């Protein structure tokens, strides 16, 4: 396998826009969650909403992509000099050799919801809602490729909450097999009624700020985020290396994880094997940690199976909410920050941890240099993805 580096990255979520703001939030324990104020939604919960998404206007040729998901993506591309990094990548490689792989679960559905709220008398979309580049799961990768001028393979990965972790594996395969020389990868998910009322219908939404791994946890909070990274074999500068990945299926149930975490265990072991690392060489795990009673219990058991003595671990979802299709990129960026900064974030809001997790779940941030970190993402359909990143 080629040595793959993360040459650039950025993230925008409720906890902050851009890496500097996020570092400060992680250090200060400043959650981005707020009481639900999403329009047309009466649910009593907290959400991770990004300020100002509504005000972004996509202009010129990009107007065909106008929707909340792509507006959020545009905001994220504006941070950390990412557009300039992409332009520099285009100097190093021909545009048709740069792949664009973006994960999403919500895509443009908030616009589709609106189009259905405003049907005309004949029950059809009003002309302003006839937007073929928006009402498709593919809107995310299509927009990013168009916005950055990338002309290699373009793909949207949509496997629920593992989507934007899998983009790294996809990029690695395209580069390994010669279909691309480098890739812009990422994930974008935006708040919408589908996920707010959908998770509510499954009785998984917490009325309080979520408390991953706490005994008193009451469910998840929905959030939105957009993040991007450049994956390249020989970059000019490196923020970290992609060492391994594992992609597995539970083959169990559409909405419930395997009771023994079989798919999660297999994903972590596959990632370790590909990275050529022993479990003891992982210095930090960023957990899926949604704060639903079942996820955190099963993930704890799975970690105990893979690691006899689990390394320091946390869920960062009490900063961001569960950003679903963007959770993979969100937590990969947090994991890469822990490598570069030597700071392991706490499992915010976890005050009284589950007894089985009490010895390894971080209740406070910790200064500690680590050489390899793991990030877990598990989704509906029993889709699991584990990534392992190493120091540059």
């Amino acid at each position, binding site marked *: 396998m080629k040595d793959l580096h993360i040459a650039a990255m950025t993230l925008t979520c409720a906890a902050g826009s851009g890496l500097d703001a996020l570092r400060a939030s992680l250090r200060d324990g400043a959650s981005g969650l707020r009481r639900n104020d999403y329009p047309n*939604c009466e649910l009593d919960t907290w959400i991770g909403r990004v300020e100002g998404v509504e005000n972004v206007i996509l202009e010129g040729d990009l107007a065909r992509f106008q929707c909340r998901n792509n507006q959020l993506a545009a905001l994220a591309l504006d941070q950390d000099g990412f557009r300039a990094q992409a332009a520099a990548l285009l100097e190093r490689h021909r545009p048709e050799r740069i792949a664009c792989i973006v994960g999403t679960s919500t895509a443009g559905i908030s616009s*589709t*919801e609106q189009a259905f709220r405003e049907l005309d008398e004949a029950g059809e979309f009003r002309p302003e809602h006839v937007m073929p580049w928006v009402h498709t799961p593919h809107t995310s990768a299509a927009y990013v490729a168009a916005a950055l001028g990338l002309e290699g393979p373009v793909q949207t990965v*949509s496997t629920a909450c593992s989507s934007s972790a899998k983009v790294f594996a996809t990029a690695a395969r395209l580069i390994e097999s010669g*279909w691309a020389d480098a890739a812009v990868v990422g994930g974008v998910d935006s708040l919408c009624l589908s996920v707010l009322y959908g998770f509510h219908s499954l009785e998984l939404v917490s009325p309080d700020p979520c408390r991953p791994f706490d005994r008193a946890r009451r469910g998840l909070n929905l959030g939105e985020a957009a993040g991007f990274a450049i994956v390249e074999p020989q970059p000019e500068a490196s923020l970290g290396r992609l060492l391994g990945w594992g992609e597995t299926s539970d083959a169990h149930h559409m909405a419930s994880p395997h009771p023994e975490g079989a798919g999660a265990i297999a994903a972590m072991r596959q990632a370790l094997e590909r990275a050529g690392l022993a479990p003891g060489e992982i210095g930090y795990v960023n957990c899926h940690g949604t704060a639903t009673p079942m996820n955190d219990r099963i993930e704890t058991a799975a970690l105990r199976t893979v690691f006899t003595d689990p390394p320091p671990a946390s869920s960062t979802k009490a900063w961001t909410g569960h950003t679903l299709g963007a959770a993979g990129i969100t937590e990969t960026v947090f994991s890469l920050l822990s490598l570069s900064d030597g700071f392991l974030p706490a499992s915010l809001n976890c005050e009284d941890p589950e007894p089985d997790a009490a010895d390894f779940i971080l209740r406070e941030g910790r200064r500690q240099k680590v050489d390899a970190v793991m990030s877990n993402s598990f989704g509906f359909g029993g889709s699991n993805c584990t990534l392992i990143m190493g120091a540059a």
Partner: protein
Amino acid sequence: MNTRLRILGSGLSAPGLPDIDALSAVLAGGELGEDKPGSGSISLLSPRERRRCPETVRLSMAAAEQACSAAGIDPAQPDAVFTSGMGDLAISDYMCRTLAETPELLSPMRFHNSVHNAAAGYWSIGAGVRGDVTALSGASDSLVTGLIEAASRVAADRRPVLLVIYDTIADGPMRAVWSARHPFACAFLLGVADDDEAAIVLHAEEGLRQDDCPPLTAALIERTADNPAARALHLLALALDGKHGPLRLAARQGPGLRIEPAT
């Protein structure tokens, strides 16, 4: 860039085309009917699961099961790539209507079936796949997107991959953005091609803005123009006779593909 692949098996599920034999008959000059695809031909789901699962699942699983069986491969074994431009349009319609009228009454089962990887997830459950089953979209480029993804997996992992291509129809206002009138699903079990084996070669071809393929019968050409997924009929024809090529499949973004038979 190119990748050499072997088509180990293929499957088909569309109105009038319930399997590959039906396609052979149409290619030989037979009539193309419009009867509903045979949803009874799925053995991997229990009757209860078959009743409860969405239409995209029934449609895609029938094709996937045929491809594995034609290749003589246990469906639990290969990693799988499901590619669809629009996912489940009937569930999107239900979700958006319910959210507009009575959001508190949203069905939890319809919600978890609304994920784009529902067909992939049910396949993993039905076939018992513990490896990777991914779900992609490339909008109307989904066929090309899926072929490139499957090719890169076979080349990188050196083992067979199941590629499932499907798209259904909009029965409501989404017709304004997706005009297909016939659902379509097909599947290919793709494997590593040794040098002396009959194979296909996929080449990236830039600047291709329109498909260019050898002729099919008029009724089949109508299907390829109707539903972007049905452009795969050309690749099914190539899998059947080893000659129907070269195929040029265009993409609106990214490279198109030139597919040539190779011996």
